[in-house]
Structure formats: C-alpha cells, structure tokens
C-alpha cells in the first residue's frame, strides 16, 4: 500500500508539470470577465462588488459594473477578492548558478541561467507571485542583466515578462574580497571602460579620415572628441555594451548593500559613475542604520527577507530588535518586500511579510503596494504591472479572501490574460486538502486496482483541451 501511494505522488508531480506546459502553449488569450468579486486595485479604493474584464492579455476595464462582450467567459467571484499579481522585486532563485566566479561580468545575462524546471516557480505561482525579478546573486561586483519573468513556461523565452530589465551590482565584498578591493575593482572597471571607449572613438575618427583619404591633423584628444559621434551601436564591443549603458544612466540597476556602511559607498559609486538616477538599493537587514543616507538618496529599496534586525548593545549586551520596514517607511521611501526563502515559517510568503508590516504599524496601503505596485515601478514596469488598471497586463489573482489574511489561498491566477493557475486543479494542494481516503478513492478499494487507472480517474477532464500551438 505504501508503495502505491508513493508511486502515485511521484506521477502526480509529473502530471503537474505537464499541465503547466499545456497552459503555456495555449497561447490564445481569452476574454474573461471576473464579476461579483471584491476588487482591491491597489492604486485606488477597493470596490466591494465589482468586475474586471480581461481582453487580449490586458485589463480592459475595472469597475462596479462593466459591460462585457457576449463572448466573454464569465467567472463568478462571489465572496472572492480580485487582486493584482504579486511581484517579487529581487531574487536569485530560479537560477541554476547565481554568480559567475569573476567579479566583473557586465556582459552576462540571467537568460542563460534561468532554470524553468525549478520548483521555485511553481511555488511562486501557487503563492500568487506572478512576476519575479530574477537577478544574479549578491556575491558579485558588477554582474549581468536581469529579467522579469512570470512563473509559467517551459523556456526562459516563454517565461519572460520583460527582458534585460536592470543590471546587478554589489558593493558588499564578494567572497574572498575585502571592501577596499571590491571598490578598487569598481573604479578599475569604469576607468577601463572610459579608456576603451576613448580609444574606440579615436579609431573611428581615424577610420573615417582613412575612408575619406584624408590625413590626420588633430591631436588625440580632439580626435577622440570628434570620434565620439561616429560611434554606432554596432561598434561597441559586447563586453562593454551594458556597462556603457549603465554609465550613461540608461540602465536600471540594483545595487546590493549588505551592511549599513555599504550604503554611502553605493550611493557615492552610483553618483560617481552616473547611474544613480536608475538605482534601486537592495538592502541587508542592518542597513536601516544608514537611513539618513538612504533618505537623502530618495531611491527605492528592496528589503531583506528578514524584517527584524536584532543587535546586542556593545556596552550593555542588551538586545535590541528593530522592525526594519517601519524605519524605511517612516523615512518616506518606496520599498519592496522579499520572501525569506527556505524558511518553514510564514515569512516565505509575500503576503505574510506585508501583513506583518501592517501589524507593526505600516499603513495597509503601503504594505499592499510594497508587494505589487512599488516593485513594478522599481522595475520600470509601473505602466504594465502592479495594479488593476485599464491597459495594464492582465496579471490578476482571484483570492479566497483578503490578501493579508492567514487563511487566504490563491484560487485563480491570470498572466497576461491567460488562466495559468486554478487551485481546484493544483494537484499538490488537492492532495494536501484531500481527506485521507479521498485522494486514492475509498480506502476500502481492492488493493489489486491498477495504479494507472486511479490516475486517469482523478485527472480526467482536468486538462481537457491540450491544444498545442507549437
């Protein structure tokens, strides 16, 4: 009997991944009307009983009453809550190896490291996190480009919501480095970039002269200045392309500051090399001590999954606990919460982190925004994600209750208008909630019943139209 159960659960897992494949490939976006639900649009007042119309992968309308086209599939959300998909503002989960061993690798892209088969994505889907900003890890100096993905799809391509969103940097020393060397590497990387670009400019200018069969008549500085305008995007070596964009302030960037003392360094570096206006600071739990510097900087921040910082007083040994988001919120900064991944506690859920913030005195509005709209804005996707508004991507959740309530589960999840999650079809949850005898049929069933049959019984009809487009 034990074996039978075992076998079955293993097969179920397989089936689920198959199911995901099916959802992804069914690329035709439907027109769906979610009606009668309580709508929490995040950027506006909640609507007690309202409807959300999803069309062509976007939110067509949100309101108390919405005119729906005749062909819309209507889903009654009576007693349910309609909420935008939550956003994980920064994580290295989902990558097979989070960091390359050389510290300065601005030419890399997480695209090459995303592993769609990781359970992380499935769990994110189940927990309502519909956009995940996958970024290189913190053990780096200047790392590659990041990517916003949705947790559904078989390839990084299919999963992509927005490519090459930002660059990842870290001022906290990489393994084997100390702070001084970390910063020395920063300086050297940008100095080299400058030099190489200058040389390129000079060469371009000379090439131009050569083409026009002219002689060189200006000193090097002038040649460089004149050559600058001649540089075309294709001339820039791949190695420097991203770093150049960064230094020109054209690339969003996430800078990791593990300790308070790293914050001023991060701000200084960002300002010095011209990418400050696009910076988001990823903070360790101790960094709240640098709140003045952060406040002056006024840039959005991503908080550590561990929301409480505990420290013993050097003099008295007394332990002090500080609730970090409160300090950040009081300073008026926009922040995003992270999940404490790997924990067996509630902190592994985004909604729980937000609920905790509310409990510690942060306004509900801010707490909700910190898991939806603010991270979207940080990622430059404020016009696409993070709230229920007309024209935004239809990343929508239907929840069984209030998003900050302990017993709430995600019932339905839509990514770009497609239904990608249905709790009723979530095999793992079905198994979790099933009565002991349910999941295998009545326990009195004869032992000789073939295992495979049991499967078809359970799953028949769940995924009826596996239309594959590809």
């Amino acid at each position: 009997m034990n074996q039978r159960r075992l076998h079955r659960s293993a097969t179920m897992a397989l089936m689920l991944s198959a199911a995901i494949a099916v959802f992804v490939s069914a690329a035709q976006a439907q027109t769906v009307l979610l009606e009668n639900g309580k709508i929490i649009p995040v950027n506006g007042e909640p609507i007690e009983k309202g409807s959300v119309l999803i069309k062509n992968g976007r939110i067509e309308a949100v309101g108390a009453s919405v005119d729906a086209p005749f062909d819309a599939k209507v889903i009654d959300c009576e007693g349910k809550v309609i909420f935008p998909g939550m956003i994980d503002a920064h994580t290295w989960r989902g990558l097979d190896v989070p960091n390359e061993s050389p510290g300065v690798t601005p030419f890399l892209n997480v695209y090459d490291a995303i592993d769609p088969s990781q359970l992380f994505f499935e769990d994110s889907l189940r927990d309502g996190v519909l956009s995940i900003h996958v970024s290189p890890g913190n053990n780096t100096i200047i790392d590659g480009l990041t990517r916003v993905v949705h947790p559904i799809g078989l390839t990084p391509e299919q999963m992509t919501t927005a490519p090459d969103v930002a660059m990842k940097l870290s001022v906290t020393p990489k393994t084997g480095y100390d702070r001084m060397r970390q910063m020395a590497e920063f300086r050297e990387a940008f100095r080299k970039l400058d030099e190489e670009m200058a040389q390129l400019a000079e060469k371009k200018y000379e090439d131009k002269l050569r083409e026009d069969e002219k002689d060189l008549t200006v000193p090097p500085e002038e040649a460089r200045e004149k050559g600058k305008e001649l540089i075309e995007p294709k001339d820039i070596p791949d190695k420097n392309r991203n770093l150049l964009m960064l230094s020109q302030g054209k690339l969003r960037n996430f800078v990791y500051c593990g300790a308070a003392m790293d914050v001023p360094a991060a701000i200084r570096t960002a300002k010095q090399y011209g990418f400050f206006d696009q910076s988001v600071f990823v903070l360790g739990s101790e960094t709240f001590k640098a709140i003045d510097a952060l406040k002056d900087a006024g840039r959005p921040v991503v908080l550590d999954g561990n929301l409480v910082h505990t420290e013993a007083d050097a003099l008295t040994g007394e332990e002090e606990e500080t609730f970090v988001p409160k300090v950040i919120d009081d300073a008026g900064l926009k922040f995003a919460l992270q999940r404490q991944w790997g924990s067996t506690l509630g902190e592994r859920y985004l909604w729980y982190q937000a609920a905790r913030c509310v409990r510690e005195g942060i306004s509900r509005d801010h707490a909700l925004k910190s898991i939806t709209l603010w991270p979207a804005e940080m990622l430059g996707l404020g016009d696409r994600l993070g709230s229920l508004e007309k024209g935004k991507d239809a990343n929508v959740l239907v929840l069984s209750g209030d998003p900050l309530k302990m017993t709430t589960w995600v019932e339905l999840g839509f990514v770009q208008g497609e239904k990608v999650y249905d709790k009723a079809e979530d095999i793992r949850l079905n198994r979790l909630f099933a009565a002991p005898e349910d999941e295998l049929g009545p326990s009195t069933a004869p032992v000789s019943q073939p295992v495979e049959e049991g499967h078809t019984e359970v799953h028949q009809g769940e995924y009826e139209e596996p239309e594959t487009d590809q």
Partner: protein
Amino acid sequence: MHKRMVFTLALLLTASVALAGDSYAIKAAGYLKPDGSIEKDITLLVIDGKIGAIGQDVSVPNGVAVVERNDQMIGPGLVDVHTTLGTNGRNFEQANSIEAGARAKELFDPDHHDFKEAAAAGITTVIIAPASTHLIGGRTVVVKTGGPREERMMGEGPLKLSLTQEAFNMRRTPTSLTGGLYNLRQMIAAAEKNKNDQSAFARWARGETHALVEVGTPEGVSTLAQFAEEQGLKCVALYANQAAERLDDAKSLGQPIVLGTYEFSDPRRYTRNPNILAANDIPFALTSSAPRYQSALMRVGAAMVMKQGAPRSAVAASLTTVPAEIAGVAKRVGSLTPGKDADFILYDGDPLDLRSRMRAVFIGGERVYVSETLASHDGSKEGGKS
C-alpha cells in the same frame, strides 16, 4: 662619561642598602595607604625584614641607616591571585578532571626565571594555581617571588576549581557543566557527612573556607552563584570579567571578584566592569595571569580600570589588600602596616600612575629588583616629570 656615572651610582645604591644590614629606614616623598590615598613625606622603618613603622613622624633608632629617597614614593608589593609561574606547563593533568588532592606546591620550580620577571613588575606575592582544564584543579600555593629563600613559601592557598568550557572535554568525565555540578554535589554531600575530613575540599564543601572558581562567561557567574547558595559555599569568581552584567549574582556570592587580564585591545564593555562593581561595593582583585600574559599588565590593567572611572581606593585594594585576603595572607602582606613583611616598591611618582617607573622592588626587606636604566635618568633629569 655616562657609563662611569652609572657605575658609581649603582655602587652607591647597593652600598647604602648593604650598609643597612637587617634594619634600615627609607625617607620618601610619600607612600600609598591601603585606602588609596597618599601620605606625604614619610619614613619607612624596616626591621628584620618586617615593617617596623611607617608614617610622617617615625623616629629612627640610633645606628639604623637612613636612605634618602625624597623624590620617590613607596607602594606595597603587589599580590597576584592567579598565576602559573614556574610551572613550565606541568600543571596540566590530562586524565582526570577532578583532582581535589593535587597540590600546586609540588609542581613549581622556585628558581624559574618567571619569578624574577614577576618581581620586576612589582608582584611580590602570587598564588600559583593548577590549570583551568580541571573541574577541581587542586590546592593552590602562595609564594613570594623573591626575598629570603626560607620565607618564600607562605603556605597553601584556596582550592581552585573551573566551570569553564576548558574544564570539560569528551575524553573524560564529567563531560559537561551539568555533569560536573552533579559530581560536585555528590562529593559535597559525602564531605558533609564526614566531619573529620580536613582536606581542602572537605573544608570548602562544608563552607569553612573559600575557593577560587573560574567562570569566564556572565552565565557562569549566575550558575556559580546559584550553586554556592544552594550548597552554602564560599566561592571567589575568577575571570568574571563581565560580572557586572550579573550584578545580583555577583553580590550574592559575598566574595571578591577576580578580574583579568586587561590589555590595550579590550573593548570598553569589559574594562568598565570594575567601575560598576566598585559602585555596588563589590570588592575585586586584578590578576596578570602571568606568564600567559606579561606581569606588567597588572599595573596597566589597574590604570585602565581607573581611567574608566573606578575609584582610587578600589583600584589600590584590587592590587594589594583584596588579593592578599583571597590568598589568606592578609596578615603578612598587602599593605604597608607595621608588623607586616617589608614587601614594597619604590616608584618615582604615584604608584598608581603609569608614568611612574618602578625604581626598586623589595621583598622581606631585601632588594630583588632595581631599574636598569635608573642611572641614566638620575644623571639627566629629562625623563622625570615636570
């Protein structure tokens, strides 16, 4: 030129002391009283290695040589309650954790150069203790670091125990603090039954004498306090450098606390502890833990402690009277009182001031150390104070 002067001066000095024979008097600028204050312009009369008299109006008997040291001050010899001088590491017993019968008396080499170093740092009386790697290390011994040979051994000191991590390892029992306490309880119960047992352990177990118990962590202080209260024991907490974090427990022990060894790298959290203990009327003693640390650190520690705000009286006591009390030799050493041994130090300034150099150290009236560079300073006044 210079060298010749050194020679002459050195000759003069030795001559003067030699002249004194068994009795001599020293006129000095002042001396450090047990309460930490300084009485000025005094005469110290030494008779047969003991202090005959000390004070402003001491009449020097005829025939007794008088040495003029009007630019110098006298301080009592320092007493260090926890050293392993001259043991050459022989105080480790690998097999057993409980060595109640061990006697430190038997394990040190009285001619070891460690003693000279200690004497040069002004430490005239020390307790030599078994290592801290035993639950019960055995009985300590109190010795002088120099002086007349026959008088060096002052007798046996308190029992030494250790409740630190070091005392327990997996290769022998007890392997843990709890096991250790369990064993102790049993041994104490046995000792209480047998009133005739006069061993050091039995006497401590019955609450008749005190013992040195090494604790280390603040938790250790609490554990010790509870245990002492439960069993009615007298325990001097050793190396309880954070005792101030367990003030109530430290108080309930009813014994002085031993602190050490302070260095210039210690964070303030440790060095401000004596200050708090003093404010709460808990006496404390400082130790140098020589030879693991330099003997000279004893005075440095005292200065650091004073800089953190500990009162002079407590700091003075922590180097002299309190450790003498712990060692059980308060009747003989620890202060410059008539009748006590003539263990004293000549300083060129306030004995508690780090700027003052030790000019000479005397034990039992005998000079055991004289500052090497003394002459050059006497010669050119540049090194002195303004």
